[in-house]
C-alpha cells in the first residue's frame, strides 16, 4: 500500500530488509543471497518475533506527521479508492527507487522459493504472500510509544487467534507458523505492480501487532482453503474496548433495527470510549486515540471482511478527522481538547439526526397533505418521524405499511401511531398489487445513497417500487445527507448488521430523494457529495 512507499522514501532500506532476511535465515535455513542487500543480517530475530510489537526502529518525527497527514487525506472507505491512492503513490515511488525494487523482487522470489520448499500450497501462497508482505511492511512504520496499547491489543488478538485456529482445520495452524517465517522473510516493500492483488487492503493504514497479523493470515488462508472463519460477535467482544460492548451485544441480539439506530448507538459508544481514553502526552493524544479507535473498528468489521454500513462509515470519517485534531494547536493558537471533541460529537449528532429529520419532515408536509394515501415499507425512523409530524398537523389521511413478512419491523410504525384515528392498513409483500389508489405516495427510508443515484434499501422495496411505478405512484426516498456515500456499487454483507440483504434501487424507479437540504432528483447525488465535501473542508 502507499504507506509502505512513504516509509521507503524516508527510512533506510536496511532495517526492514534486515529483519526479513534474518527471520528467513534462522527459520528455514535458506540463504537469501541478494547482492544488492547490505550485509548485516545476523542480529537476533527470534526475540523480535516473539515480542508482540515487532518494531524495528523509531522512525523520524516527520514520518509520523507524513503518515498522519496521509491518513487524514485517505478518505478511504472502499477498496477502489485505496487502490487508486496506492497506484498514485506507487508511481511516485517507482520513479524514485528502482534499484530498491529490483532488490525487493529478488528477495521476494527467494522468499517464495523458500516458502514453496517448506511445502505451502504454491498457488495460494503467492497472493497471500503479497498481501502479507504489504501488511508486514506496515509494521516497520510503527510509532514508538504504542507498545502498551499494542500489548493489550496483541494479547486479545492472540486469544482470538488461538480460538480461531482451534475452530478452523489443522492446516491453517501449521501454515501459520510457516507463514510467519515467510512473511517475516519477505518483510519488504512490494513492487507497486499489483495493488489490486492483495486480498485484504489495509483500510486505515495503521500498525498492527504481530499476533493480529497472524490472525489475519489465518483468516486469509482459511478463505483460500474455503474454511470460513466467521468470527461471531461474541468473540469480537473479547478483543474490543469495553465501550463498544453494548453495541456488539445489541447487534448480536438482533435488536438493531437499521442503520440509523446503529449510527446513534455507535456514537454513544464512541463517547464512552473517548471519556475512558487517556494518554500521557497531550500532543500525541489525538493520534493515539485515532489509532486505538481504528483498531476497534477493524475488529468490529472483522478485519474488513465485512465493510461497516456506509452511513456509519461517513460518520466515522468525520469523527476521526476531529479526533486527529485533539491536542493540536491550529494557526490561531487554539488547542482542541477532549472537551471540544465531545461538544462536536453532541453537535453532529443533533445535526445528523434530529435536525435533519425535522428538515426532511418540513419538506414533506405539503406533499403529504396533498396525497390521499401514504405507503411505506419496513421500518425507518426518519419515515416514522415524518408520519408522526403529519399526524400532529392533521395532514395524514390513509396509511399503508408493508413488510416482507407479517409481524416484521414495519409493525413499529403501527404501534407508534396507535392513537391515530384514521385508516391504517398493514400487509405483507403479497398485498402490493392491491394497495395503490389514485393519489398515493410512497415514502421509503434507506441505508445509503450511492453516488450513481442508486439507493440501498431493505430487501423487497424493489418490488414495491416496481409496482408503484406501474401504477403511476411517486416514490420518495428519505435520506439525511450523512447517508450519501461516495461509492458507485454496494456490497451485500455488512459488519455489525450481519448478512443484511439490501435491494439496490436504480434511479429510474425513484421520483425524488428528500434530504435535509432540499428535494433532489437521484441524479443529483454527486452534487450533494460535493456540497458535503466543501462543507467538511471548511
Amino acid at each position, binding site marked *: 500500500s502507499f504507506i509502505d512507499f512513504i516509509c521507503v522514501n524516508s527510512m533506510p532500506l536496511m532495517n526492514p530488509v534486515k529483519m526479513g532476511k534474518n527471520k528467513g535465515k534462522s527459520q528455514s535455513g535458506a540463504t537469501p543471497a541478494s547482492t544488492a542487500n547490505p550485509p548485516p543480517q545476523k542480529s537476533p530475530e527470534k526475540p523480535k518475533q516473539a515480542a508482540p510489537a515487532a518494531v524495528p526502529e523509531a522512525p523520524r518525527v516527520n514520518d509520523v506527521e507524513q503518515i498522519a497527514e496521509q491518513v487524514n487525506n485517505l478518505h478511504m472507505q472502499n477498496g477502489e479508492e485505496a487502490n487508486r491512492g496506492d497506484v498514485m503513490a506507487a508511481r511516485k515511488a517507482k520513479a524514485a527507487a528502482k534499484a530498491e525494487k529490483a532488490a525487493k523482487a529478488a528477495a521476494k522470489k527467494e522468499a517464495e522459493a523458500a516458502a514453496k520448499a517448506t511445502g505451502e500450497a504454491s498457488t495460494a501462497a503467492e497472493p497471500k504472500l503479497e498481501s502479507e508482505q504489504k501488511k508486514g511492511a506496515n509494521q516497520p512504520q510503527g510509532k514508538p510509544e504504542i507498545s502498551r496499547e499494542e500489548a493489550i491489543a496483541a494479547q486479545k488478538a492472540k486469544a482470538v487467534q488461538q480460538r480461531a485456529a482451534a475452530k478452523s482445520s489443522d492446516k491453517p495452524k501449521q501454515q501459520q507458523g510457516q507463514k510467519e517465517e515467510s512473511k517475516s522473510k519477505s518483510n519488504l516493500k512490494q513492487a507497486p505492480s499489483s495493488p489490486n492483488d492483495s486480498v485484504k487492503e489495509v483500510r486505515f493504514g495503521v500498525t498492527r501487532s504481530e499476533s493480529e497479523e497472524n490472525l489475519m493470515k489465518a483468516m486469509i488462508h482459511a478463505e483460500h482453503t474455503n474454511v470460513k472463519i466467521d468470527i461471531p460477535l461474541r468473540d469480537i467482544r473479547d478483543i474490543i474496548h469495553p465501550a463498544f460492548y453494548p453495541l456488539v451485544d445489541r447487534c448480536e441480539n438482533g435488536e438493531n433495527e437499521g442503520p440509523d439506530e446503529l449510527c446513534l448507538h455507535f456514537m454513544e459508544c464512541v463517547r464512552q470510549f473517548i471519556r475512558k481514553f487517556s494518554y500521557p502526552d497531550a500532543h500525541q493524544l489525538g493520534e493515539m486515540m485515532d489509532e486505538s479507535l481504528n483498531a476497534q473498528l477493524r475488529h468490529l468489521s472483522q478485519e474488513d471482511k465485512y465493510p461497516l454500513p456506509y452511513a456509519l462509515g461517513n460518520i466515522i470519517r468525520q469523527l476521526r478527522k476531529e479526533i486527529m485534531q485533539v491536542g493540536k494547536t491550529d494557526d490561531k493558537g487554539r488547542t482542541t481538547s477532549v472537551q471540544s471533541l465531545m461538544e462536536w460529537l453532541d453537535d453532529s449528532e443533533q445535526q445528523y439526526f434530529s435536525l435533519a429529520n425535522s428538515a426532511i419532515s418540513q419538506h414533506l408536509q405539503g406533499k403529504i397533505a396533498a396525497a390521499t394515501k401514504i405507503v411505506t415499507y419496513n421500518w425507518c425512523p426518519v419515515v416514522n418521524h415524518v408520519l408522526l409530524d403529519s399526524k400532529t398537523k392533521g395532514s395524514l389521511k390513509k396509511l399503508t405499511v408493508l413488510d416482507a413478512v407479517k409481524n416484521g419491523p414495519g409493525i413499529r410504525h403501527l404501534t407508534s401511531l396507535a392513537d391515530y384515528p384514521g385508516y391504517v*392498513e398493514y400487509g405483507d409483500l403479497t398485498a402490493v*398489487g392491491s394497495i395503490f389508489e389514485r393519489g398515493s405516495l410512497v415514502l421509503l427510508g434507506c441505508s445509503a445513497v450511492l453516488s450513481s443515484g442508486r439507493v440501498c434499501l431493505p430487501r423487497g422495496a424493489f418490488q414495491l417500487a416496481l409496482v408503484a411505478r406501474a401504477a403511476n405512484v411517486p416514490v420518495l426516498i428519505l435520506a439525511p445527507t450523512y447517508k450519501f456515500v461516495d461509492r458507485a456499487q454496494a456490497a451485500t454483507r455488512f459488519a455489525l448488521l450481519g448478512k443484511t440483504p439490501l435491494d439496490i434501487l436504480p434511479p429510474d424507479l425513484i421520483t425524488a430523494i428528500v434530504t435535509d437540504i432540499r428535494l433532489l432528483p437521484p441524479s443529483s447525488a454527486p452534487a450533494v457529495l460535493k456540497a458535503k465535501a466543501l462543507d467538511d473542508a471548511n
Partner: protein
Amino acid sequence: LVAVIMAHVEAPLVLDFNEIRSTFVHNLAKGHQRENSLKIAQASVNYIRKIIAQEKYENIDELLEVLRNHLRYAISLAPTELVVRNVFLIAMKLAREENTRALIGVDKEVGNPYDSLNTLWKAEEGSLNASAAGKKMRKGLIAAVKEILVELDSSRESIVSRVADVLQLNDTVLTYGVNSSPTLRLFLENARRTIKMRQILSVSASLEDPLCPDYASSISLRDVAGAMTDVTKVLLPVSVVFPDGSALMPSGCLSIAHAAARHAVPVYGIAAFYKIAPFFSADSAAAVNAQGAIGLPVKLADSLRHRVILSPIFDVVPAHLLSLYISNSGAVLPSHIYRLIADYYHPEDLTEEL
C-alpha cells in the same frame, strides 16, 4: 371430500333436490383449504348432470331458466368462484346447441350466432326460435355434459404434455405456489423427466417450506427482484383468465410479473379451458382471504385496534406482462383469448345479468 359427500347423497332413491344443491354449495364455501380448480369444475359438472336429469322443463327457455337459478344460488354463496360460473355457462351453451340439433338434425349446419349478419339473414326463419321437446333434449344433453367431463379430465394431461413448448435445456425456472396447483406441479415433474433444467425456484412464504417439492429450492418474495437476473422462465398458476387476456393469479404474482418484465423474462400462465371467463369480475379481483391466519401476535391487539390487515387472495396481472397461456388446446397469446370464448360460450348467455 367432494366425491365422498356426493356419493353419500346419491344413495337414497328419493332425492331431495335441495339437499343436492346445499351439498354442492357447502363444498364450495367450506373451510379454508380451497379445493383445486379442477375438482371444483368436476363437482360443478356433476351437479349440472343431476340438475338436467332431475328437473322438469319443457323447452329450451325453461331449461335455461332452471340452470340460471341454480347458478345464482351457487354464486351468492361463493361469489369468487368463477370456475363454477364458467362451467354453468358452458353447459348453457351446450343446451342451446343440443336444442338446435334436436330440431334441425345433426348433419345440418346450425346458425352460429357468431356468423355474419348476411348468413344469419339468409338462415331459415323460425328455426332459431323454435324449441325441441324437453325430453328429447334431455338425453342428448346428458351425453354432451358427459363430454365436458371427459374434456375436463383430459385437460390436465394435455397441458402437462406441452412442456417442450415452454421449457428448454438449462433453464432457470421461477414458479409460485407449487403446492396449491396440482397442474403446475405435474407440469414441472413432467418437465424434469424430459428436460434438464438448471434450477427451479419456488416462491413461498417461508424459506424452509415443508410442502415445497425437493426438486425446487425455496425463495421468498422479497428476494425475487434480485434473483430475477438469473431466471430465464417464469411459470405462474392462473385462477381465472379474463377476456382481455389479463389473469387473476394468486397474490404476489403481480410483483413477480413486473420484475420479470423488467428483466425481459417470459412469463407463462397455466390455464385450462374452464378457467377462461367470458367477462370480467371485480368481486373476484378484490377477494380477501377471510379465513386465513392474521399473522400477528395477540399482544399487539390493543395497539392495532381498528387496523386493517391486508390479505388479498388474488392479484390482477394485466395482459401486457404475460407472454403465453398454456391451455389444453395449445399455447395461446393473451390477446387471442377472446377467440376461445366463442368456442365455449354463447353470446346470449353473456348478456343476461346473473
